[in-house]
């Protein structure tokens, strides 16, 4: 690879959709490992595809979130319920930090 080569990035939007297989591949996990993560609501299949697991689809946003869940679980030795809670609290913390930053700039 040459350093001069320029790679174009693509924005991941809410409307980009991936299948369960693609999600497994992106996170290097098997479907069996991903199912409990879905059961704990860490990520959710899109409402339109929820009826049958064969047709499950996910927003592409799920990939970074899944990866974060995997890192937290692995590095901190926490179970799925704990991971789900940690992620929710981190989301909340992020929103609050953004709000504080906005207020401080006023």
């Amino acid at each position, binding site marked *: 690879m040459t350093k001069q080569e320029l790679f174009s990035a*693509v*924005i991941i939007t809410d409307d980009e959709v991936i299948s369960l297989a693609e999600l497994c591949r992106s996170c290097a996990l098997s479907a069996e490992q991903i199912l409990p993560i879905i059961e704990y609501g860490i990520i959710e299949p899109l409402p339109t595809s929820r009826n049958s697991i064969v047709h499950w689809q996910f927003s592409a946003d799920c990939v970074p979130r899944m990866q974060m869940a995997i890192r937290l679980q692995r590095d901190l030795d926490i179970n799925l319920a704990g991971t789900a809670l940690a992620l929710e609290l981190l989301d909340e913390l992020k929103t609050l930090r953004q709000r504080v930053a906005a207020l401080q700039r006023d």
Partner: protein
Amino acid sequence: MEYKDYYQILGVEKSATQDEIKRAYRKLARKYHPDISSETEAEAHFKEVGEAYEVLKDPEKRVAYDQLGKNWKTGQSGFQPPPDWNEGFEFHGGGFTGGDSADFSDFFESLFGQRAAGAHRSSRAGQQRGFQVRGQDSHARVFIELEDAYHGATRVLTLQSTELGADGRPHIRPRTLNVKIPKGLKEGQTIRLQGQGSPGYGDAKAGDLYLEIGFNPHSLYKVNGHDVSLELPITPWEAALGATIQVPTPSGKVELKVPPGSSSGKRMRLKGRGIPAPTRGDFYVTLEVVLAQKQSEKEKSLYQALQQEAVHFNPRANLGV
């Protein structure tokens, strides 16, 4: 090479029990985990803590390390392990912390070898040689300027990636990527670089690289999603009489018509002048009436004339005073 005091890194006494070491590690891992921590250098700390725990949690490695470390202090350089230092010790591989043990320091490697650090990794990935498995997707964070969200940007990123070498062991390879960041991003959004994640096994394709976008704070503008706002100082007479004022925006200067009788705090919208996403953000201007710090005698007398003229105006009427 610098000698590393693993006890100091974990903040425990040399006499600490295995349980104390475990507790100290868990606490620090939570404190410095890069996904959680807002500390600077969290990632470096996290790796250091993981490395220290890797050694101290394993009674065999700990004893060997203690033997070696008697005469060394942390940060002291020039460290070289004696050639036969680990004679009489047998390392059984043991469990490894889940962290990226492939990133351990030279100090660790000189003591326990690449093999030790690599064992963990290759057990996860190495057996897949001969198979074709598309590489895992990787993840990193990148900070951009607000202007980059308007115009797009190119960024040079340096990433540490682990690859299987010809010998079947993982090696760390820093790589530099020239990335074109598209315009229209908002804070917290993720972008993807196809084929720039972990390499695939066999002839399979590499995974993708995901980059989470953060904005560096801007001296003028505030950003909320795709909307951008600015506080615009104006003079009392501009506020009273109305004016056409030049306003900076990240996409260039624009003329803003301030209507007569505008008060401080009045918010005006420039439609579509926010971040250029498919649904364009808007640009908001909040007016702020500003007075000069010192007034000349002439100015003072003009204000006095104004005071006498506008005697009927009570801005505090609805406060009941």
